[in-house]
């Protein structure tokens, strides 16, 4: 049984610890190249060793939850494209699944399989972007990290091209809707997907080779150790939780979409450190490639959107109640807590709470950073894969 160092108390009194104010208080962010957006960490440094870290999110707070209270269910989807701007596809799915549960809408099988394929493609694209930016954090913008980032962006672009074929948009798709999807599969899309998968698969081996060196290992191994019990308490999900050795993946454990048709092999690594999180994400990319291949052969015929008139306000008026739906996005469990029956004569949510996996992930920095060096801040933060648009909403 592995023993972990005692848990850090993030609220300990720094003035009591350091009455003479000998420590250097360093504000990292909000304008800093490696905080993945506008996250601010206040660090108390003893030399270069971190004694205490305090996180300050909120610099990108746009009041999405308040905005949702004024819009109808159909109007909300495009807003969700913008909140986790690296994986918009899965955001749309998360919020639309909550609407479907509240409104009691059935999604046709064709749309469910299509959503699964889109979610897996989005997972590959998101993890590719993460891999590039993570190595950028370790290697610097002038260095090996930048090289890997250019490669991963090349592959990510291929996947975005696939989404463009389907929806007409590279990024803000607005392709999901309560009750189904808006855009049906265009002609030749499956062949294009297969071609992209075949192109990406060998290149993942090349990325492994680029990351398989001693410098990468010493920079990530035993850095940012997150014990499993703390990971659960903090509400970590997705690759961060699985990198802490907990075998939990909603795609397998609470199947939604068409995940019950396929056998998802969950990547788990009990290293609990940045290296484990890296390994989990790379393994997930390979698994997603396999899943998309398998799902492409299973697309049934039929409509992609339910027959009910989803835009009718009459139907929404009946929507009272409170539901919680969580799905496995590339960053973990993106949940929506939804209270129905608000403005717009009952067609808008009364209260919509987004449960962003990234907010839980960045909350961990206060526990992970103390004891590490200044250089490890960017490694730890990068390995948690926070998207500030999602953290602050």
């Amino acid at each position: 049984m592995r023993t972990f160092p005692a848990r850090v108390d993030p609220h300990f009194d720094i003035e009591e610890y350091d009455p003479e104010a000998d420590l250097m208080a360093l504000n990292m962010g909000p304008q800093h190249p490696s905080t993945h957006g506008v996250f601010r960490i206040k660090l108390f440094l003893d030399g270069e060793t971190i004694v205490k870290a305090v996180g300050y999110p909120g610099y990108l707070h746009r009041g999405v939850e308040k905005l949702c209270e004024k819009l109808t269910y159909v109007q909300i989807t495009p807003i969700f494209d913008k909140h986790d701007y690296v994986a918009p596809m899965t955001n749309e799915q998360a919020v639309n699944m909550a609407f479907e549960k509240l409104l009691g809408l059935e999604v046709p099988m064709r749309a469910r399989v299509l959503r699964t394929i889109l979610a897996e493609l989005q997972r590959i694209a998101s993890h590719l972007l993460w891999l590039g930016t993570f190595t950028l954090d370790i290697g610097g913008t002038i260095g090996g990290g930048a090289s890997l980032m250019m490669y991963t962006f090349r592959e990510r672009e291929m996947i975005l091209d696939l989404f463009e074929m389907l929806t007409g948009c590279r990024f803000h798709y607005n392709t999901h809707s309560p009750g189904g999807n808006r855009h049906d599969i265009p002609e030749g899309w499956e062949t294009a997907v297969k071609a992209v998968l075949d192109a990406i698969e060998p290149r993942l081996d090349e990325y492994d080779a680029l990351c398989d060196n001693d410098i990468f290992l010493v920079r990530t191994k035993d850095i940012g150790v997150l014990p499993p019990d703390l990971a659960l308490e903090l509400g970590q999900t997705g690759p961060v939780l699985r990198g802490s050795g907990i075998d939990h993946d909603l795609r397998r454990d609470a199947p939604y979409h068409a995940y019950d048709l396929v056998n998802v092999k969950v990547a788990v690594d009990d290293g609990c450190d940045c290296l484990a999180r890296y390994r989990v994400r790379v393994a997930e990319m390979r698994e997603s490639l396999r899943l998309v291949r398998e799902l492409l052969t299973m697309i049934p015929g039929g409509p992609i959107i339910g027959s009910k008139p989803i835009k009718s306000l009459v139907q929404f008026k009946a929507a009272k109640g409170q539901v919680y739906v969580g799905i496995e996005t590339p960053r973990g469990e993106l949940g929506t807590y939804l209270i129905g029956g608000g403005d717009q004569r009952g067609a808008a949510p009364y209260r919509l709470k987004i449960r962003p996996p990234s907010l839980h992930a960045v909350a961990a920095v206060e526990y992970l950073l103390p004891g590490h060096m200044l250089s490890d801040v960017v490694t730890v933060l990068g390995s948690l894969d926070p998207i500030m648009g999602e953290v602050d909403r």
Partner: protein
Amino acid sequence: MSIYEQLRERFDLPEEPPEGEPVVIPVDQHVAFATALKEAGFTLYVTVCAAHFPSVQPKAKKGEEPPPMTTEAWEVATVLRSVGTGSETFAWRVRVERPVVPTLYSLFAGADWQEREQYDLVGVVFENHPDMRRLMMPEDWDGHPLRKDYAIDTRVAPWR
């Protein structure tokens, strides 16, 4: 035996779980309820959602006296999840007429930031929380934006 039946033996819950919304429990049982769930395997802290229900005048039926105003209330819903195969969520609510709810920080470290966010946006104070500051809005912000009586169309700060 389902988790709901297990909990019903220890807490004062309705016979059947309510349809379409989480069960409401008294606020003084909030922490004990969360402890029982954590012991029953719901170890993953998922989320907390506070909502504001202002005092409103319900519509009167034709020819009748208008019913009395509803009292202002806050609801705090907490969601926990069990991990591994067959993972499921369990959500419950507490409904209070004064925005004060005990914190779950001692059980779940993740409640720290989540409860700060709810305090910031909805204005529900979590008792015994070690660090009840605003999380998203500026420190000197007036009011709690997600309250229903928060005026979103008026100018609230000189720079806007």
